[in-house]
């Protein structure tokens, strides 16, 4: 399987993502330079975490104008699997590939910690290896992860079953305290209508090795690998 990881100026989880895919999941993984126009035949494109363009202006706002993003857009429109992690999620929102926007965390502070996530649907290329209601332990690290969408938008993503992950307690309950960044409806990750583009704030690449405390990120990567190998 070929994973292309987009490197923007300011990306800082690019190496982490590459490391995990190459050495933990034993996949072909390589960088895609933001100024290029070539996805190098990737089966899956990942927009990694970090501070693209310093997150100046708004998180992810400037990166969306990168030359390569035109290709990524077309790739996604033709059904290609795209995963945006953290800053990558923010870029996807700015790009309009996913609905909604990010506001500053409700406590107005950067938050780096482990959180619990409830899998809301397994009917996607990203969660087919999970069970509905299963709780994952994956860290977050962001300043702007307070998801927002207007009323009609929320109704729509709910109706289409687009919400993939919600912040929850260890037991899978949705509480105000566990919704650490204040996201609307506890949304931590969602897919587009076509279900081939996922944006998620938590970092699965930081939860893929026992040594680092959690292997729950495997669900996401295993699902993608399984989907690309079989379902398509």
């Amino acid at each position, binding site marked *: 399987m070929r994973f292309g990881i987009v490197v923007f100026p300011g990306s800082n989880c690019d190496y982490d993502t590459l490391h995990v895919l190459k050495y933990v999941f034993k996949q072909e993984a390589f960088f895609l330079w933001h100024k290029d126009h070539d996805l190098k035949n990737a089966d899956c494109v990942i927009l990694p975490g970090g501070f693209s363009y310093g997150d100046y202006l*708004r998180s992810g706002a400037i990166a969306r104008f990168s030359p390569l993003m035109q290709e990524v857009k077309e790739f996604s429109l033709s059904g290609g699997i795209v995963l945006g992690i953290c800053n990558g999620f923010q870029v996807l929102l*700015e790009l309009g590939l996913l609905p909604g*926007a990010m506001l*500053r965390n409700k406590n107005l502070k950067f938050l780096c910690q482990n959180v619990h996530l409830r899998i809301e649907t397994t009917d996607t290329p990203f969660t087919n290896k999970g069970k509905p209601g299963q709780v994952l332990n994956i860290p977050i690290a962001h300043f702007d992860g307070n998801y*927002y969408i207007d009323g009609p938008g929320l109704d729509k993503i709910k109706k289409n079953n687009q919400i993939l992950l919600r912040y929850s307690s260890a037991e899978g309950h949705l509480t105000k305290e566990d919704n650490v960044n204040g996201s609307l409806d506890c949304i931590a990750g969602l897919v587009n209508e076509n279900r081939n583009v996922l944006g998620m704030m938590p970092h699965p690449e930081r939860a893929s090795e026992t040594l680092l405390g959690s292997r729950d990120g495997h669900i996401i990567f295993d699902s993608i690998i399984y989907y690309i190998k079989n379902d398509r």
Partner: protein
Amino acid sequence: MKVRVLVSFKESVLDPQGQAVKNALLTLGYDFIKDVRQGKVFELELNDISREEIDKVIPEISHKVLSNPIIERFEWEILK
């Protein structure tokens, strides 16, 4: 030529930063404060550009780049 663009959250969007400032001011005893909204301001210095072009291009830039229309609105003015 200098242009100022103001970007702020739409009314319907919660503005936690503005709220924090409001609370800080109330705590300091400025009890006449009813509400605070925080936004961004951009001052653009422009080279040789006509008035007509400005009217076309500044709203475009503001909409496409300087603001995120899902949560923000903008206004702009010519400074000099």
